[in-house]
């Protein structure tokens, strides 16, 4: 046999074996060794200046999510105070609190993590200095302190943010939230020179494999088969709500009610790992932007196929009254089988 990794931390490495894991995380169960290949740190941010907007986020590893069948699944997430200047803490939510900023704002995301674990924030699609990119192996995993991510969004559009420590697990556990960048014109305009809109809907579609939800935050990092190569979801959510039944139907801001003649902007985020196909129930929408960038020419569609972490901004101008079913299939990345479907609605009055 070739080199076989021992089951625990390689003492010659620069990694930390700060314990943590199961017990304190709230996930409990499945405790293995310590953490390997994490890079703890919370240094001063290079080039720190005063911010126009500040988000103070903490960590909550005990967020119960009750599904339609009565099952409660433990989620992880960021707790926060939104755009205010208040302290960290408070209960986390799933998804984590949305960030909404204006193009050109200097933004601080202050992430506070206690000494028992490590996390980061990567503002997905935002492209800051690498010291504010939240990727542990290139910089550091925030541990035992507060780190300030400093960024200044240059392009209005739809983004999201998520943890980038042991990402395969932490993002699946729910450590993400929407991130909206408005143009200087403000909400109501998608991007400068782009379309305006009257009503907004948020379709953040994700799958949950409940068998992952008892793992510790360190799961698999030191080796051993903890099943992270296999995501076999048994629940399907849209913007934090069980989407398999009627829970998201008529529930704003997931489902939307618009009047004929109004424009609806749907911000669709493929937040899961498996590919998705979203169908608009007979409505035709127009994609104006994707991944935070305007398309050179808008494209009219009745459905969209999306890969993990893609975002699409779709404008609907429905002419006929009625209720339209917005269904998103979650499709297995190898077999192509439909694993589950989320349901939301657009009601036109």
């Amino acid at each position, binding site marked *: *046999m*070739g*080199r*076989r*990794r021992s089951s625990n931390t390689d003492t010659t*490495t*620069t*990694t930390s074996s700060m314990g943590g894991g199961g017990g304190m995380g709230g996930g409990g169960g499945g405790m293995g060794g310590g953490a390997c*290949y994490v890079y703890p740190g919370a240094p001063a941010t290079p*080039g720190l*200046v005063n911010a126009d907007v500040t988000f103070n986020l903490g960590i909550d590893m005990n967020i119960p999510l009750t599904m339609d069948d009565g099952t409660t699944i433990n989620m992880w997430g960021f707790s926060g105070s939104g755009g205010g200047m208040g302290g960290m803490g408070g209960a986390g939510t799933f998804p984590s609190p949305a960030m909404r900023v204006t193009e050109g704002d*200097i933004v601080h995301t202050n992430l506070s993590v206690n000494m028992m674990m490590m996390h980061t924030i990567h*503002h*997905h699609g*935002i*492209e*800051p*200095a*690498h*010291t*504010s*990119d939240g*990727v542990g*192996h*290139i910089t550091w995993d925030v541990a035992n302190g507060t780190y300030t991510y400093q*960024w200044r*969004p*240059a*392009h209005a559009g739809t983004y999201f943010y998520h943890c980038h420590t*042991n*990402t*395969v697990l932490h993002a699946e556990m729910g450590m993400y939230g929407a991130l909206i960048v408005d143009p200087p014109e403000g909400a109501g305009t998608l991007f400068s020179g782009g379309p305006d809109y009257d009503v907004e809907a948020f379709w953040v579609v994700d799958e949950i494999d409940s068998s992952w939800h008892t793992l510790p935050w360190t*799961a*698999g*990092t*030191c*080796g*051993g*088969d*903890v*099943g*992270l*190569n*296999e*995501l076999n979801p048994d629940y399907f959510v849209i913007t934090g709500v069980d989407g398999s039944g009627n829970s998201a139907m008529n529930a704003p801001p997931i489902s939307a009610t618009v009047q004929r003649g109004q424009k609806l902007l749907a911000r669709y985020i493929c937040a899961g*790992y498996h*590919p998705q196909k979203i169908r608009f129930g007979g409505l035709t929408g127009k994609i104006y932007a*994707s*991944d*935070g*960038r305007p*398309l*050179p*020419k808008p494209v009219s569609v009745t459905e969209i196929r999306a*890969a*993990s*972490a*893609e975002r699409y901004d779709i404008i609907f101008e429905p002419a006929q009254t009625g209720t339209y079913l917005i269904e998103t299939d979650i499709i297995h*990345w*190898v077999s192509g089988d439909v694993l589950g479907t989320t349901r939301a609605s657009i009601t036109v009055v």
Partner: protein
Amino acid sequence: MKKSMDRRTFLKFSSAGIASALVTSTGLLSWNPRAEAATINQTFYITEGFITQPDGVDVYFRGFSPGRNNLTVPGAQMIVQEGDTVRVTIVNTLGTSHSFKIDGIIDSGRIRGGESKTIEFQVNRAGTYMYYDARNAPYNRLSGLHGGFAVMPNGSSNKVYAGSPTFVQQYFWLFHDIDPVWHNTIRNGNTPNTRYSPRYFTMNGLSARPPGAPGAMDPNTDSMADPRSALHGHVGDRTLVRVLNAGLCQQSVHTHGNHMEWLTDNGQVRDDVWSKDCIYLEGNMGKFDAIYPFESPPDAWPPVTTGIYPMHLHTEMSQTAGGGLYMFGALTDIHFE
């Protein structure tokens, strides 16, 4: 026929021995256009052996290799020019039948065990292709018999296709996913009948090793240090990535630092160039071309022109090895120098 082989008779390679042959044979793809078409000669030996995965497990592979006594997965990157004649000699050192195919260009047909065959073909359409063994599909390809093949437009050093946006350097990102159970079944001459469960994920044949891991920063082991995979550029060094998927998993290719200009999708020039941070890569030989523009990261404050960012698949299961070991999967780094 070698239906069943004693494992000791196999060539066994650490990944180190494999990539070094590739790096020296090609490295970063620099391309000087020629005024005249040329004849390109290439010989591949179909060989087999074991490659040690990040968790220490040895997995059986076959490859289009540069010699009888080595194993290269994927096969050497090939880059030619429209109008060239390509003459490929396949020496099948195994007992099983194999082939060499490039969709839309050439199919060698069956090359029996122990036989050799030389095929000659002209390339007339610029683009990004995979050469692969089409027999016993998809199993022979999955076992490692595949490689990247690029055709440059006639007389061009900086375009993907006539009239395309331009670049100054180019790379292949050839992704693969590996189910060791299937590979062992293929080794034994049988057809896999278990549910496909990939446990290892590679780009250009290597998985990543995070800092501090054994093999980290070794360009023959660590895809983050592999000069065939890691992008290096200064601001303005627009970089073409030719993205191919030899595996079965659908992937989401995600870059940090810059969005990508998405030029082609499964061989078709797109109607418009979209700027994307994630691009859908089909399984089972999906492909696309994109330019990583190496622009100053747009959302940095204060502005920066240097830094290191990852490219990783956002289908995060592909970032693991053996069911754990996050960051030992298919990812690399992008260096703004």
